[in-house]
């Protein structure tokens, strides 16, 4: 049943600037399925195509080959139906709007009326602990606070799917842990599925049901690791032995991906020198 699948990525490749000297093979043969309510992290070295994969799911770019389904619909349809919310590496707030009005933006585009928007925006700001700053302008906030506003904005319309690209990268460790716990709580409550890009192995393990490990360019999925830490994760989870075991497993998978590439490079070199 496709309705139970939040995301299906089927045989997707992405080549940028095909046929030009700046041609980049960003993704090769990606197959990935995200179930309803599932939390999946993408992890891999810089430039391996994590953001590209996320943008393909969001239909911000088109795949070169293959097919992307979101909520059972093809990706363009899903985007038009606003099936997902998104948070980027950069907060991307609108300078001329107050914090609350930034959070209201997706609701505005959905045609919600003013008071309903405002109520939801304040609810979301409470979630990220920024109620006091509702009427501030974004540039009056620190980088981390701005990122929290961006997360509130992504959650505002209560989408069934969240696409997040290193959203916590700019936060301090304590805020980050708090945001991670909050994100898990919200997703569990609302049965939201998440595709989450991160550079942090502990973050990936703590948050995810599955961690997708990707290899350096051209990006492939080298391994998908099930993280079975029980239904609810708490502060204790971070000190649990099974948590550390998973972290090690992901780290080794990442290193294996790198090694593969080195072997390939050596083989290619030998081939060309022959």
């Amino acid at each position, binding site marked *: 049943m496709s309705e139970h699948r939040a995301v299906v990525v089927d045989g997707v490749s992405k080549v940028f600037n095909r046929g030009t000297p700046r041609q980049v093979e960003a993704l090769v043969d990606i197959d990935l399925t995200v179930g309803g309510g599932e939390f999946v992290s993408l992890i891999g070295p810089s430039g391996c195509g994590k953001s590209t994969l996320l943008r393909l799911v*969001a239909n*911000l770019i088109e795949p070169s080959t293959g097919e992307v389904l979101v909520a059972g619909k093809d990706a363009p349809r899903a985007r038009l139906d*606003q099936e997902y919310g998104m948070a*980027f590496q950069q907060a*991307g707030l609108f300078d001329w709007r107050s914090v609350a009005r930034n959070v209201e*933006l997706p609701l505005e585009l959905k045609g919600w009326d003013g008071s309903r928007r405002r109520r939801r925006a304040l609810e979301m700001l409470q979630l990220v602990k920024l109620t006091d700053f509702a009427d501030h302008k*974004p*540039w009056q906030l620190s980088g981390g606070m701005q990122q929290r506003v961006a997360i509130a904005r992504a959650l505002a319309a209560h989408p069934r799917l969240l696409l997040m690209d290193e959203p916590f990268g700019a936060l301090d460790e304590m805020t980050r842990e708090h945001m991670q716990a909050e994100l898990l709580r919200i997703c569990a409550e609302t049965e939201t599925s998440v595709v989450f890009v991160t550079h942090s192995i502990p973050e990936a393990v703590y948050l995810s049901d599955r961690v997708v490990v990707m290899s350096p360019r051209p990006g492939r999925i080298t391994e998908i690791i099930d993280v079975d830490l029980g239904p609810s994760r708490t502060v204790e989870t971070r000190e649990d032995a099974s948590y550390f075991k998973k972290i090690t497993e992901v780290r080794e998978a990442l290193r294996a991906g790198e090694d593969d590439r080195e072997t390939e490079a050596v083989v290619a070199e030998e081939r060309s020198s022959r």
Partner: protein
Amino acid sequence: MTRRRLLTSLGPPIVFGLAFLGLWEAVVRGFDLKPYFLSAPSKIVEAIGDNVDNVWDATVVSGTNALVGLVIGTLLGVAVSFALMRFRVLDDLVTPLAVALNAIPIFVLVTVFNNMFAITSEVPRRLMVTIVVYFIVLVNVAKGLRQVQPTHLELLRSYAASPTAVLSKARIPNAVPYLFTALRIAAPAAVITAFVAEYFGGSQNGLGYGITSNSAGSKNAVAWAYVVGACTLGLVFFLIAVSLESYINTRRGLGPGGGTT
């Protein structure tokens, strides 16, 4: 606090200006320079006093020309910049042309316009100001409409925003500081164009005409009185535009210097 800041920032230029005037006066008297060569500030003040009505009338004429051209040029510039954004081809054609025209003194075109209209008409000058302002506003506002943060465009795309929504939620607000930067440049340019255009003939009532017609012999001091009028007019336009720009930029958190280049 702010008053003291104002004093410390305004104090030195004022002192310098007064000292300069004093020196000027002393040189004219000390070397006994003839009025047709250089008038003393005291004589100029006298001339302003004697001709206050004439100078005021001329200032109103030139000021009105500048203002009318500024308003129409701004409206036109904004309107066309939207059209450029809508139609890419137009943009590729017009923008390089506009940039090039901004770099040359196109106000000499006023001689052509003078031949097209009645000799007493103010239209040629207003038309000239309009054209100068139009290109400045066009180039800047078009840039503001185009240079939107890529993240903003992606976000709006992810919200399935219509082209109209992209315009109203991102492009137009983004272009606002660019408009006020354009006005800061265009306002003094409008005044300069308005009275330089008077040098090229046409009706004989503005500041530029007052300067040229009086800048001979004993009337030199009167010419200077018109110069003072012209400077004041230019300063007023400039200060209003600068205040507007810094007000807008402060509200945006860009700082009074502006974030638009």
